[in-house]
């Protein structure tokens, strides 16, 4: 079990850029850090660079330049030291459809080397209320059920850092609220850090202590939801988001 180094940020990114072969610059000289034990949102319009940034943090995509330190480790050089301590969920990445929920989770528990996988599956089944469909094929589940299973997969290894791409996308308000409740509960109990990309501003205001807003591959605003509302003179984060998305010049603060 790796030691937690207090004071070291969960995520530390310096000068991160991604330029694709077609010369499209998806992420442009981005630097930020996320302290341990908070929930941080990564916001931005479509094509702002959020998913590209998350992919680089996960090691799925190699950056063109810059450095990434996750939980104190250099992600580009020691990826496999960090991955067992991370979790990831996204509605755009599936689990095998023909395998049952229990089979899918068992395979991932073994991949992560989870001790006593059956007990961990039972804990997560209770926490995320997925016990009723553990024997169903993943492909037969509703969107809300899939999201909960995907979240269970990402929590199997009790991650210190959880990266989430639109965790409540396409969910009804009830299902979305349950997911948020589970996330809050996990974060409170474990002290984990959560970085989530979302388009749901209310969700971000409810869950997150820190917000990073991207536009055209750069971070153009950062702070707590209250700080951003104050800075932009808006009474909601949605207003801040719209100001930034539609602005031609740089942010006021």
């Amino acid at each position: 079990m790796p030691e937690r180094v207090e004071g070291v940020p969960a995520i530390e990114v310096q000068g991160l850029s991604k330029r694709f072969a077609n010369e499209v610059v998806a992420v442009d000289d981005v630097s930020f850090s996320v302290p341990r034990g908070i929930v941080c949102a990564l916001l931005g319009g479509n094509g702002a660079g959020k998913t590209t940034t998350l992919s680089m943090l996960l090691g799925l995509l190699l950056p063109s330049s810059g450095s990434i330190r996750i939980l104190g480790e250099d992600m580009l050089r020691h990826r496999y030291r960090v991955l067992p301590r991370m979790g990831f969920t996204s509605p755009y990445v599936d689990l095998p459809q023909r395998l049952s929920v229990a089979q899918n989770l068992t395979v991932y528990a073994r991949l992560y080397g989870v001790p006593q996988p059956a007990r961990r599956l039972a804990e997560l089944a209770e926490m995320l209320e997925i016990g009723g469909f553990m024997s169903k094929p993943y492909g037969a589940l509703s969107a809300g059920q899939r999201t909960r299973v995907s979240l269970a997969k990402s929590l199997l290894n009790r991650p210190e850092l959880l990266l989430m791409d639109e965790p409540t996308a396409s969910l009804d308000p009830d299902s979305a609220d349950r997911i948020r409740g589970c996330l809050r509960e996990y974060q409170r109990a474990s002290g984990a850090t959560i970085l989530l990309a979302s388009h749901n501003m209310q969700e971000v205001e409810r869950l997150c202590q820190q917000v990073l807003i991207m536009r055209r591959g750069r971070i153009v605003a950062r702070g707590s939801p209250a700080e951003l509302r104050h800075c932009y003179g808006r009474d909601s984060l949605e207003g801040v988001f719209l100001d930034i998305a539609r602005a031609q010049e740089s942010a006021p603060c």
Partner: protein
Amino acid sequence: MLNAAASFNRILAMMLRYTYLLRGSWPRILELIYWPTVQMILWGFINQFLVGQSAWLAQAAGLFIAAVLLWDVLFRAQLGVSLVFFEELYSRNLGHLFVSPLRPHELVMALLGISLVRTLIGVGAAALLAIVFYHYSIFDMGLYLLAFFVNLLVMGWAIGLLVVALVLRYGLGAESLAWVVIFAITPVSGVYYPVSVLPAWLQPVAQGLPASHVFEGMRAVLLEQRFPLDLFWYAVGLNIVYLAVGAGVFLYAFHVARRRGLLLHVGE
């Protein structure tokens, strides 16, 4: 030592995933057995007919049946790697797999392992049915059969990894390669006839394939009751090169996929 055990467990986890998939679908198991059996029956009849027409073939009654069964070892081994990897693409699962501690080489090992299982099921069933239908047992070749089997299996793995690498690089548009690539090398592999039948300019191509040495070896065992060690070692040497190239190209394609951001999108 601890790392090796963890790595082994991850390979087993992936093999478990593929076994779940196979176990949960009887049409998949049937499909594994179907083509090798149909091929065996077809070539069995051809063999029966030609034994009465050819003194050469009469020396070894089951020559064509042995040839088709061994050829299917190569084909099933290649498909076992390629098709199982495609399952990951169809299910858009690569993004989850490669943010887990699974290393690319561990995925390769799991693919090779499940390919062995699928080949044994498919060709094994056809070989047993050959005993029932034609009273011909390929197992009579004994340990020589093991030498032929391993060489063809490894060549199939190498080609399978090359196909997977191409699909990783160019997307599922390239998946039909999995079905056609083997047939491109059949004519020069000497499956049903000696390599000497080929035009002189084509024979060096055949010599560069491990399969052609295996099938020459098979004919020597069945027709002349001798095992040519030199052909065996040629096949082994070539296979080492083929497998190294297959694995190397796959790992390079994986690196390119990470650079281009294909791991999240390749199944779409």
